[in-house]
């Protein structure tokens, strides 16, 4: 990319943050240099460590739950423990893993680089939001140790007000986490508005950044409602004010309105970042711009707005008026339009591209496969008369796992493999990554396809035990969970192995035209040695020069006299 010499101004002064031209991983050493860093890349890596641990913990709860359901009756734990397992699985996965996963880890790392900035707008606020996240995690861990919660991650009243377990500390933890989410969102909004490098106009903004921007809008506008809701819940439990508890004159359905007014937009906090990663992967590995990129960017904003108007579809059988039910059903169907636009445009991008079957691209295609199932099964649930039969069954469980895990988690894994060389400077073993992918893909479908079928046959969710006719489906689902776990562990191993055994990665190992690949691998402290001036869009392969698209594998090879660890296809631009 054409770069003119604009001297670095402000930001990372050499004295406090190390040499701005040095590798960000090596500029300063010691625990203190990480704990007190304001470098968005280091904060991103620390978030990545935390959300990965949270994913591990949430995943262990999921595996334990599936083992309990392997046979009828008691398999390994009693009913009260099982109820805690599914509550903790949901709460840990939603609040500790999936909401912060892409924005706080990958977004933090790449959003500033992708707009040619030296850091986010408020680096210290960024570090603060990480510590607030840690405090939230600590409170939630304490509540798990102190007796745990068995209300489901939705904390529905009046059960959550009456149950004897530590609902207060759990909700207080979620309340604190909300602030972390808001601060990250605010930081991203200001960064995107004020810190774009010369030449990065709104139309040249990478789709990942557009997705982060849309997500940040939702985080800033929706999260306060969650805080209000949880505060009301805490007030009710401590002071006995009748807000939600009918015994005190409250309305339990009001809690559901409050809760989903946040938690439905939160679904888009989870999925929009996944879509944002997917756009990057499809463009890079098709070697061409995303078809209708502007429509894809606008569909993220469209989802962010529509996400605020559909919370009522969680309450179709909960006791809403027929009029409200009708309205929410109609609005819910509109979500299909921006979702469909993305799927169609990604598929059209592959047409007449030059498709590299690298591991991140496998995840990108799996995203289209799985998210299409997740989206289409949403049609069943938006259709009122069909939803009455399906809601609160395993059909819903399978549906949202196809969206959340088949969408966001799959994109997160694809994004990790894609950006791992840029973040760490090391290339992973593509063969292991692809075997891991196959296991994840087969395992995931084996877990959740049986859940669709048992759900439509009438198996309600959150059940400790089930009728004999559902046993084969539960068995298949549990076996799938072991395949899925094997794939995830192999993928984690592949990434970690790269750190000590991986080949040194060149500047642009995948031959991408994206802005983030123009800088060093790993990036220098200031991201770019000179502020870049951008002369083309991030996906303009036909405008990019051969040096910009060069992978640099030849230099790695000649420098080390070894063959690179990447697939042969990644060597060519």
């Amino acid at each position, binding site marked *: 990319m054409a770069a003119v010499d604009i001297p670095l101004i402000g930001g990372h002064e050499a004295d406090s943050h190390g040499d701005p031209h040095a590798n960000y991983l090596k500029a300063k050493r010691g625990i203190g240099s990480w704990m007190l860093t304001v470098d968005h890349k280091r904060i991103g890596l620390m978030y990545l460590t935390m959300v990965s641990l949270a994913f591990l913990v949430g995943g262990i709860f999921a595996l334990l739950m599936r083992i309990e359901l392997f046979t009828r009756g008691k398999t390994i734990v009693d009913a009260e423990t099982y109820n805690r397992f599914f509550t903790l699985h949901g709460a840990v996965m939603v609040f500790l893993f999936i909401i912060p996963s892409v924005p706080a880890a990958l977004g933090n790392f790449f959003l500033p680089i992708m707009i040619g900035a030296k850091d986010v707008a408020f680096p210290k606020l960024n570090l603060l939001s990480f510590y607030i996240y840690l405090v939230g995690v600590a409170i939630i861990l304490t509540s798990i140790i102190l007796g745990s919660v068995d209300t489901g991650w939705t904390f529905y009243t009046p059960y959550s007000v009456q149950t004897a377990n530590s609902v207060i500390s759990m909700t207080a933890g979620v309340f604190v986490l909300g602030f972390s989410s808001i601060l990250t969102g605010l930081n991203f909004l200001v960064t995107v508005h004020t810190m774009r490098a010369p030449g990065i106009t709104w139309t040249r903004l990478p789709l990942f950044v557009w997705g982060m921007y849309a997500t940040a809008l939702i985080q800033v506008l929706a999260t306060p409602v969650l805080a209000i809701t949880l505060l009301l819940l805490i007030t009710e439990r401590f002071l006995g004010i009748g807000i939600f508890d009918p015994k005190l004159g409250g309305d339990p359905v009001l809690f559901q309105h409050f809760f989903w007014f946040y938690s439905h937009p939160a679904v888009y906090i989870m999925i929009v970042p996944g879509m944002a990663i997917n756009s990057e992967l499809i463009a890079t590995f098709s070697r061409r711009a995303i078809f209708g990129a502007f429509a894809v960017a606008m569909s993220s904003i469209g989802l962010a707005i529509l996400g605020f108007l559909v919370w009522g579809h969680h309450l179709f059988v909960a006791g809403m008026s027929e009029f409200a039910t009708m309205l929410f059903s109609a609005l819910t169907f509109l979500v299909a339009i921006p979702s469909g636009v993305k799927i169609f445009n990604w598929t059209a991008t592959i047409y007449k591209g030059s498709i590299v079957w690298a591991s991140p691209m496998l995840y990108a295609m799996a995203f289209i496969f799985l998210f299409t199932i997740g989206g289409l099964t949403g049609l069943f649930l938006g*259709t009122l008369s069909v939803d009455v039969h399906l809601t609160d069954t395993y059909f819903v469980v399978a549906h949202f796992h196809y969206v959340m895990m088949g969408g966001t988690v799959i994109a997160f894994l694809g994004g990790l493999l894609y950006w791992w060389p840029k973040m760490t400077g090391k290339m992973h073993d593509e063969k292991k990554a692809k075997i891991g992918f196959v296991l994840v893909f087969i395992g995931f479908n084996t877990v959740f396809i049986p859940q669709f079928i048992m759900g439509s046959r009438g198996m309600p969710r959150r059940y400790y035990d089930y009728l004999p006719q559902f046993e084969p489906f539960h068995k298949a689902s549990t076996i799938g969970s072991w395949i899925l776990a094997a794939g995830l562990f192999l993928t984690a191993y592949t990434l970690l192995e790269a750190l000590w055994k991986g080949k040194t990665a060149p500047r642009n190992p995948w031959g991408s035209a994206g802005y983030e690949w123009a800088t060093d691998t790993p990036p220098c402290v200031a991201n770019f040695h000179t502020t870049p001036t951008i002369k083309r869009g991030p996906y303009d392969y036909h405008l990019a020069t051969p040096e910009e698209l060069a992978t640099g594998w030849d230099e790695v090879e000649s420098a080390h006299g070894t063959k690179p660890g990447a697939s042969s296809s990644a060597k060519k631009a």
Partner: protein
Amino acid sequence: MNEPATFQLPEQMSTVASEVDWLYYFIYWLSVVLFVAIVGAMVYWAIKYRERPGHKAEPTGHNVPLELAWTVAPLFILAFLFHKGFEGYMDMSVAPANAMEIHVNAKQWGWEFVYPNGGSDNELHVPVHQPVKLIMSSTDVIHSLFVPALRIKRDIVPGVYTSQWFEATHIGSDDIACAEYCGGRSKDANGDELPFAQMTGHWSMHSMLHVVSEEDFKKYLIGIGDKCAAYTLKNQACPDSIVVGEGQKLYSKKACVGCHTVTGAKLVGPSWKGIWGKEESTDHGPVKVDEAYIRESILDPQAKVVSGFPPAMPPFRGQITDQEIDEIVAYIKSLKD
């Protein structure tokens, strides 16, 4: 109209089921077509245009008509689905004027169905081809009455009445389940784990729907009616054996069985065996278990809680008649030794 179960959906036993299932399978096949088209195109192109020497990606162009088409065309399908779904939902929501009303009391963790003659049961019996409106209330937390074969489901919210209706189309039986998570208990008052058969909770709120002929339903109603009612009408005293029997029926119908044993074993509440006439220590001092204490404990359970037990019982005020309390007292008396 009464189709047996398909691979994806259970047997159809109500007037709305065929309409719901038609729409379900319509969306299913629509989804199959779209899924195969999208994923098929993706895989085909990803192979056809795979990277290889001599092949170069074509720069992405614009095709505004195509983009507009796939933004606008789905709106027609969506509008159709919305319309059909709402139509079906309204059919499920508006009960016919001649519907028979059956009251449903949901509690952790059991069902009680109260019929027009005042009789009650923990399973639901209805006559075939007769619209039935369920008027539902909960004593504790939110539950949801779900009958897969009828394709109906509705939350039961404490503090308000909710309702749903159906008309069964043929004679048979099916499962009734609770579909809104309502907790569970697997430990006794000492915190020791109970055997699986004694664990109760959300999943164990299972009951049965029995669709019977009109004749059989009439017989059933007489059977569940209060046997003492006939004596009361004639101003005669009801024989003790019948009163105790009615009390025993109430023990399971009112879900007392979930927390109190009659064998002496300790669950969440004290066992009824041998409790009659005993001196119990409570949080308000010692109390003799007599008619007055039992009555108070049923209507206002938190008034005096026996030591060593949690104040977990829901109040039954407004949900139990004086005659039913007498019958339960008689049953407890009969468990004296």
